[in-house]
């Protein structure tokens, strides 16, 4: 009886009975009965002719006496309740939906991936400022323990009650590390003692709020960090990058680690007006000149000197490209795009239309190199004007399009509406498979025209006899991102598909998921 309930009798007699039982009545005599007069009298009636049976009967008397006479320990003092949470509680249907999402079951009908819909539910509920019912807070904390990508939203949703529970349950301590940083002391503790991922999160959050404080935090421990950690911390400076970071980044160009040096250089190249940007522009304009007759004359660098290396360009291409092409590409990609328009007085479109000629041979082998480098620069510098020109109109054939760089990355630089329009145009003439990365770059939920284009492309893919599992990536995106208004079109597809085929099942599931998503979002409407 380790329960903490007290029995009203002395423990010695019971302990004696137990040790006799452990050793055996062959080896140890029966203990003397103890306790109240009634208890002793009751024990005296036990027939002791067989000590083993007698022990069992004495023990039965004692157990019943103990259990019947249990007393509760004294009252304990409750902790202070957590601070009140003024947010409105989730509407009941939404709370029920949350239970289904957390349990991973939708109830009725084959449904696609609920785990993919949970993040959307959480983000929406958080945005609307709801408080989940107290009974669901533990399940939310548990879900975010297993899936760290949910933590950002869960931490806000669970509110003060969640923080109190996390103080009490070591399994949920991650919450303290994610939120217990409101004061400067907390921030510092995470930074000094936290796990690597927590430190990165901490740095990123701080940069978002106060870039200078973030930089100071990183600079404080910089020399002591391991090279691979330095690399990722440096990457976190992308958040809130500004001129104030330049001295630190310039210093990082002298880092022991090659990758750290390269990352510092890349950051500096995106920093408007940075000294590194100026140095690169000088090199670029020395390598590419505009002749009076409107030709871009290319004279690639002939060596990778120490200063070039310090600015983040390794002498050897990691993929084994020709040295001169490698150096040229790296220099151009790190050159501020404004350097070209300023120096040559032409628009991006005009520049892209110019013929490109090798200064020595007169050949055009640098043409693609130049476009490729400009595309990388446009992505790095987030330059929509250049990205738009480099992408051009949506091509008929994805593979032969000759779009420089990565179309999905260029697309990501454009404003959301333009991204959706370009991708929709692309989908009208290409299959869904080729559009996977582009769709991933589009903002969600998709615009109605993009949604319509996706559904039409899927329908064509089905009609053309391809298999749904070839498009599982796009289907997954569609579940999460399709405009709610387009759901009936999918339901119609499901109804029209030949019964018992893989596509019928796929469209059926997709329609079900979309319905589920639409309902779940409607329940969260204020």
């Amino acid at each position, binding site marked *: 009886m380790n329960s903490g*309930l007290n029995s009203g009798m002395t423990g010695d007699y019971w302990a004696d009975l137990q040790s006799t039982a452990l050793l055996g009545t062959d080896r140890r005599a029966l203990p003397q009965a103890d306790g109240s007069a009634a208890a002793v009298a009751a024990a005296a009636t036990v027939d002791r002719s067989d*000590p083993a*049976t007698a022990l*069992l009967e004495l023990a039965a008397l004692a*157990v019943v006496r103990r259990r019947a006479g249990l007393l*509760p320990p004294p009252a304990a003092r409750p902790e*202070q309740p957590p601070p009140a949470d003024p947010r409105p509680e989730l509407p009941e249907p939404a709370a029920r939906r949350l239970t289904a999402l957390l349990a991973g079951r939708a109830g009725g009908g084959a449904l696609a991936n609920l785990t993919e819909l949970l993040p959307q539910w959480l983000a929406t509920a958080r945005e609307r400022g709801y408080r989940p019912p107290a009974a669901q807070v533990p399940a939310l904390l548990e879900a975010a323990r297993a899936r760290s990508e949910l933590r950002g939203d869960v931490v806000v949703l669970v509110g003060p*009650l969640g923080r109190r*529970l996390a103080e*009490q349950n070591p399994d949920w301590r991650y919450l303290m590390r994610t939120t217990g940083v409101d004061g400067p002391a907390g921030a510092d503790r995470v930074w000094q003692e936290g796990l690597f991922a927590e430190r990165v999160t901490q740095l990123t959050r701080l940069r978002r709020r106060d870039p200078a404080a973030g930089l100071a935090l990183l600079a404080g421990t910089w020399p002591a960090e391991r090279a691979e950690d330095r690399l990722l911390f440096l990457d976190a400076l992308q958040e809130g990058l500004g001129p104030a970071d330049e001295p630190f980044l310039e210093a990082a160009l002298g880092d022991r680690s090659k990758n750290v040096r390269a990352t510092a250089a890349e950051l500096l190249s995106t920093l408007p007006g940075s000294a590194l940007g100026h140095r690169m522009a000088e090199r670029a304009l020395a390598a590419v000149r505009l002749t009076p007759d409107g030709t871009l004359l290319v004279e690639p660098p002939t060596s990778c000197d120490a200063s070039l290396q310090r600015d983040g360009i390794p002498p050897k291409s990691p993929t084994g490209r020709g040295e001169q092409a490698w150096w040229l590409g790296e220099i151009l990609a790190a050159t501020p795009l404004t350097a070209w328009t300023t120096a040559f007085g032409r628009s991006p479109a005009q520049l892209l239309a110019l013929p490109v000629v090798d200064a020595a041979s007169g050949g055009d082998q640098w043409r693609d190199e130049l476009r490729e480098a400009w595309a990388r620069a446009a992505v790095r510098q987030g330059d929509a004007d250049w990205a738009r020109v480099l992408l051009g109109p949506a091509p008929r054939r994805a593979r032969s399009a000759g779009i420089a760089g990565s179309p999905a990355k260029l697309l990501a630089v454009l404003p959301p509406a333009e991204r959706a329009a370009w991708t929709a145009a692309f989908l009208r003439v290409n299959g869904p498979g080729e559009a996977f990365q582009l769709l991933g770059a589009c903002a969600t939920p998709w615009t109605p025209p993009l949604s319509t284009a996706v559904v039409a492309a899927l329908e064509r893919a089905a009609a053309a006899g391809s298999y749904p599992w070839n498009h599982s990536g796009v289907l997954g995106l569609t579940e999460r991102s399709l405009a709610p208004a387009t759901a009936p079109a999918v339901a119609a597809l499901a109804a029209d598909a030949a019964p018992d085929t893989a596509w019928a099942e796929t469209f059926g599931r997709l329609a079900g998921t979309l319905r589920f998503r639409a309902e779940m979002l409607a329940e969260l409407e204020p």
Partner: protein
Amino acid sequence: MEERWSTEHILSLAPDAASRAAAGPFSAPAAWSAVGSADGTVWGLCAGSGGAPYRTVVELTGPAYQCSCPSRKSPCKHALGLLLLWSRQPQAVPDGGTSADWAANGAAGRQRAARGPADPVAARRRAERRAARVADGARELRLRLADRVRQGLAGAAGDWDEVAARMVDAQAPGLAARVRELATLPSEEQLAGYALLDLLAAAYQRVDELPGALAATVRSRVGFSIDSAELLAGPTVRDRWLALGCRERVEGPLTSRRLWLRGARSGRQAVLLDYDRPGQPAELALPVGHSMEAELAFHPGVRPLRAVLGPRQDTPVPTPGPPRGRTVAEAVADYGEAVAEDPWTDAWPVPLAEVVPVRGPDGWLLTDDQGALPVGEVDSTALWRLVAVAEGRPLTVFGECGHRGFTPVTVWDRTGRAIDLSLRGAA
């Protein structure tokens, strides 16, 4: 009519947990192409994976099992499933049919003499025979327990599985279950387990001398069951019954469900025990926090608690607000009284009023102004739901109070909403 065995009884016959689990699919009518029950045997034809169907026969008085399946376990999953079907869906295995020839031949080298299907003399003889077998089992069990105590519990752990199997043979499933439990008790509770088991076996040896109610308690603890229809034919208690709490447990192929009720007018507590049936919803569909007008028939005993539901009177309606609760001291005293009357009581259901969950040095407590109760066996999901709903403030909590502490089942939040602490219940 042959007394149909209880589900607990049949589950106790399984040679191991795997057979218990495997029996599930065979407890549905669909698994059988033909079934019947006659002359103390239950038989069935079970379509196997191909070829001739398996022929399964259970002779109830042995019990003895025969099955043409290749399994070497006895009873095999087919025999267990067949018994479950016979026990739980009487209409699917009608009584009094003529047994198939092969069943009559196979089951009963020993059992040629035809018996009338509803021969009261034969039924009484069987009951007497069973009582004698249980008494033999109880005597043997006491000897085994005394042997262990003589040699010392610290010695080699005895083979309790074998003793449990003997108790099943003796048709005392209640004793068998307690024997199995001995192996799982923590060392400081071992002696208590031995002593109470010995007390139960000793009580059964003198069951005819005991007062009626206590004798009924002893019989039910030993494993004699009473048919629901028979109970409902006797006195019933009509009241508006509020569902205080519900707990499901997986037991082999089945899920057991306990539903605790309290009568609004009588203040009486009751617990209904039910098992889900494969492919069928459980019979007890009274959600926690709802109440309905109904008649209950209680199993006899010194502290009648377990009951069966009579024909339903109306549909359940939500009944918000917590039930009137007890203080911590009263709850512990209630348990003490229950133990004083029925020494084998492990816990007693009780709603606690105005208690707060508090973290103590040795685990969680539920405390009021006067005393605290340690939280006993509870899965962590339920515990944290309770802590979350309470938010550090006093609430009414229903659960079982016993010598291991208090096991919470339901909590009423500040708006009066009943929250089932098990996972199954959505908020």
